[in-house]
């Protein structure tokens, strides 16, 4: 595991996700109450990008079938997804977002 710089903190919007890649692996960045969080972009149910979903406070709703995940932990809150998505450690250095993977 190592830290990867994936974006500038200012690029992560307030009410939408931002999809970034680490070695081709898609990760969704979200901002919740000022903090930036990173989870796998691919929904655990089918082929959807969670970064393209709807952000409601600390939750992200999948754009395809409305499964809902906790942005801070990746935990699935409602189906049809049944598995959590992975969440990653994030740190901000000099305005840049670093994700550990």
């Amino acid at each position, binding site marked *: 595991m190592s830290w990867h710089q994936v974006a500038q903190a200012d690029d992560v919007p307030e009410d939408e996700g931002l999809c970034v890649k680490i070695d081709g692996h898609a990760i969704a960045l979200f901002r919740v109450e000022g903090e930036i969080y990173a989870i796998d972009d691919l929904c655990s149910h089918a082929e959807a990008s969670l970064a393209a979903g709807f952000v409601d406070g600390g939750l992200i709703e999948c754009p*395809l079938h409305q499964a809902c995940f906790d942005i801070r932990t990746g935990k699935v809150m409602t189906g049809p997804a049944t598995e959590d998505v992975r969440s990653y450690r994030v740190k901000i250095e000099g305005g840049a977002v670093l994700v550990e993977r």
Partner: protein
Amino acid sequence: MARAFDILIVGGGQAARRAAEGARAVAPEASIAIVGEETHPPYDRPPLSKEILLGKADASLCCKRDAASFAADRIELILGTRVAALHLNDHKIETASGERIGYGKLIIATGSRARSLPAPAAIADKVLTLRTIDDATRVAAHLHEGAHIVVIGAGFIGLEAASAARARGARVTVLEAADRVLGRVFPIEAAARVERLHRDAGVDLRLGAKLDEIAPDGGRVRVSVGAEKLLADLVVVGIGIIPNTELARAAGLAVDDGVVVSAEGATSHADVFAAGEVTRHPVRGASAMRIESWQVAELQADAAGRSAAGAPTAYDAIPYFWSDQYGVNMQMFGLIRPDGAILVRAAGESALIFSIGADGRIAGAIGFNAGADMSIAKRMIGAPAPVGLEDAATPLRKLLRAGATA
């Protein structure tokens, strides 16, 4: 010795699983059992007409839990067992083999069965409905390049089967007796989009098609429609489902299309609850409805399970449904009001179709590849339709905010 459980669930599908899980969540000590007719542990049906037919996954995708996981949660599975009668006054059920099983609370989660078409025995294995894992596995085996699949009925199951069959290279003819697809669910504006989708994908979609006969024809199936004879390798019958209300009715429970329940899932009889799509339950913005959907099997059943276990829990979700065909994602929230107006907000491949009630409020929304806008549309349901809703150039989020502050 006679068996008895604190909570006994009749029916072995997704609703049964969810009712058991709901009950377990609030009653850690209760003894819980599921009596199911199929020999499979409870499974979810959405993948049957999608991933399984596409050959992308096997049946395990439907099984959210295996037998061991039920055992670990002390939910006993009594499978391959048909229930013959409910003896409500004795707090017992009776199985087809004559065993009586006692209960403290009973949950009826008998679901529905596919409506079938009579076919001669010689072709019974080629005229299939699509309801169970076994059905889906059999249908999937027929979907390949060069095969001709005739789908009877343009409801969601039939259309998803058509979509999967095309994806696998089969030639597909869809026969629908009505003059449009999805007649029971979608307004014409949405149905027309679905029709276009299928025709663009090469489906021979025939509306107003009156089926005359299904007969064997040299190892294949001859489907007669008027003067025309179609030769099919497989006929998929998707002409609706019938709620399994017979046990409830025979036991004297109130049945009106579905088993009538309160928001908490309680039936007309004390100690008896009902869960899932067999129920006719209160629906926001309507009186009561029986709804065939994953959501009802998942969430109404969870509420009924909790209620049965002593923690009254109301189910009050906005009705939700999804389908994926030819890679196009369709979702629906709320209700379509036949007496209201339809408003179309379209931009290229994506569209939102709103049903506006006579009171000017948004009653429902259907999205085609609408993405996150679907989540926004859900939050607009029940609110007055904002000015400019049909203008796709105005972000929906902006209209939602305007509505919230108005």
